[in-house]
């Protein structure tokens, strides 16, 4: 496996349940050391994709390579390279936190000393210290979730699949999760994370959008914002609506894309958000009217996603 091949390569991966296509011809790549965010509404096929990549579900068509191994032909060897935290917290309730760690570590044939070492490393980072000897069924759900994450990391896998790791987790604990995710990526691990909290996806190097089984977008967060939501937005503010109206007209004639904003303000869309480009626009505005004020911002991933779903809706219905 050479260094310049992607660690996850997905090629026209398809999974049907009966006549229903849960994952439809999905292709993308994830590079080593990346955080990849996989986003889609409920039932869009995220978990099904992950379960295929983990070797839990056989693809109907297409294939994928994870850590250089084919998920169809070499499923047995893949398991030791990947960590998987399922959407459902899957721990043994009658066992203590530490016993769960010993159990899952044991299934990877790790020596007890090695499990203890990993536990010393992971438990404090996930706020699990002091809970080692509590029965898992007596732990609060947020802690169970963190323990499940710790258990899936014991064997130090190169690729880690996290299926909605922060579902139902409060803001502070989500931060704990994402800090660890970024640290792992910095160590060279590859993380494949699904979530429906779209703001979290700002942490990802690449984002894939999946809608009804189809991959409808794949890019970096910035790329998505530029390509799917027109890039930067400069919001123009002024007390006098008249001033805004003339500014909008003159910017339009100069070739800018101008849209009315939500609160009566005017938005200028900038596909190229470079500093030079922004400065040029600021100078032009100043020349028009020195009292015009503007704040530039990127749209949120949420806005991008909403926009993309809107774009895809009609074509889907035509087909149906």
């Amino acid at each position, binding site marked *: 496996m050479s260094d310049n091949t992607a660690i996850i390569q997905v090629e026209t991966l398809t999974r049907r349940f009966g006549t229903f296509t849960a994952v439809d011809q999905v292709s993308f790549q994830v590079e080593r050391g990346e955080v990849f965010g996989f986003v889609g509404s409920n039932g869009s096929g995220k978990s099904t994709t992950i*379960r295929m990549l*983990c*070797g*839990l*579900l056989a693809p109907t068509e297409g294939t994928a390579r994870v850590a250089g191994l084919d998920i169809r032909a070499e499923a*047995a060897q893949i*398991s*030791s390279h*990947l960590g*998987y935290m*399922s959407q*459902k*917290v*899957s*721990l*043994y*309730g*009658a*066992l203590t936190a530490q*016993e769960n760690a*010993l*159990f*899952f570590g*044991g*299934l*990877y*044939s790790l020596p007890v000393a090695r499990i203890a070492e990993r536990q010393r490393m992971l438990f404090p980072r996930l706020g699990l210290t002091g809970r080692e000897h509590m029965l898992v069924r007596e732990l609060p759900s947020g802690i169970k979730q963190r323990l499940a994450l710790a258990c899936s990391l014991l064997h130090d896998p190169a690729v880690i699949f996290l299926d909605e790791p922060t579902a139902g987790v409060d803001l502070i604990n989500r931060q704990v999760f994402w800090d660890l995710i970024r640290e792992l990526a910095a160590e060279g691990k590859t993380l494949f994370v699904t979530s429906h909290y779209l703001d979290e996806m700002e942490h990802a190097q690449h984002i894939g959008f999946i809608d009804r089984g189809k991959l409808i977008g794949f890019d970096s967060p910035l790329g998505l914002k530029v390509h799917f939501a027109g890039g930067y937005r400069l919001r123009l503010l002024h007390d006098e609506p008249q001033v805004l109206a003339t500014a909008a007209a003159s910017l339009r004639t100069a070739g800018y894309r101008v849209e009315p904003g939500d609160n009566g303000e005017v938005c200028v869309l900038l596909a190229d958000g470079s500093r030079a480009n922004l400065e040029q626009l600021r100078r032009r505005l100043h020349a028009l009217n020195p009292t015009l004020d503007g704040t530039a911002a990127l749209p949120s991933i949420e806005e991008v996603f909403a926009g993309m779903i809107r774009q895809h809706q009609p074509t889907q219905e035509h087909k149906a």
Partner: protein
Amino acid sequence: MNLWREKTSRLRTLLWREFVELRRDRFTLTIMLLIPVFQMALLAYAITTDFDHLPLCVLDGAHTRESRQLVSAITATGYFTLTPLRDLEEVNSFFGREHCRAALLIPMDFSELIANHKDVRLGLLLDASDTTMATSAEGFLTAMAQAFYRQTRLERTPLTERNLRPEAIGIVTTRSRMLFNPPLSGTVYTIPGLLGMICMFLTVLITALALVRERETGTLEQLLVTPVTPLEVVLGKILPFGVVAMCAIVGSVVFSWLLFGVFPNGSIGLFLAVTPIFLLIGLSLGLLISSLAHSSVDALERSILIMVPQLMLSDFLFPLSLMSLPFRIIGEAIPLTHYLRITRGVYMKSEGLAELWPEVAILCGFLFLLIRGVSRAIKKQS
């Protein structure tokens, strides 16, 4: 070498977890250990009292001291209400009615045969419309006769060939001969059967729920992303429960010995060696049901659905030898049938591996196929 160490360490891990869970879950453990003994006490009691004051007709053709001794010994047990008959004509008209559910025919040369140390054949007619009664009474009377004269050979006389009305005799038309060793009570026939049934119920029900539960909590999926193989998952489930079930069965054997005085005449070693195989078969069958079920309720329904026909067609309730060919073939495809042959052989006929090896081989075959089947089912569903 390294691979072997990894495999065993994974299996050890699976077994360790199952035992920790069992230790924490005292309730399941207690139920598993107590239910067999409870079932044994309840059913053995219910079945042995089945023929309390059974109307028994006796045609004493010998009228000798020995024959009268036999009759009074039977009367003394209190299990039968005796009606003496004078000739075969009376048997003809009485049998099958309320006051004659069974008939014992003592031959004219009864005493001479005993005196000459020859085999004695007693005739026994049973109203087999109530098979439980018939088999219990048969076992009991055989035991009595043998206690009376150990070398007595008992034959279910083919009296239909004489002028008895066939419908009155029910289905007792076999010429089969059974050789028993001297057992001491009627329970000897039911206890080995009960042991088989208890093994079946205990094991199928335990594991029928096991995989569904792991699927519902998602831990099965979590197991299957690790290097664990489906075969290891299966062994990790059936071995620990096999140990517990074996303890329960040994408990039942001791219990039935203390309470009913019934203990294997034949090879107890064979019984102890074969029982784990049969327990593992039941546990694998439960797992197979579990792997196909959608929910716990579904798993329970399926196990009942699987077990009831097994009880019907395995010789446990109704004699398989009296059934028509298609049912006999189905019966042969049921592991319980073969296990019952072993337990009855060991308990009642002093048999050992020399006689029973074909049954043992068949059970091993069942176990092999079932384990393979479950491993495949787990892989496929994943």
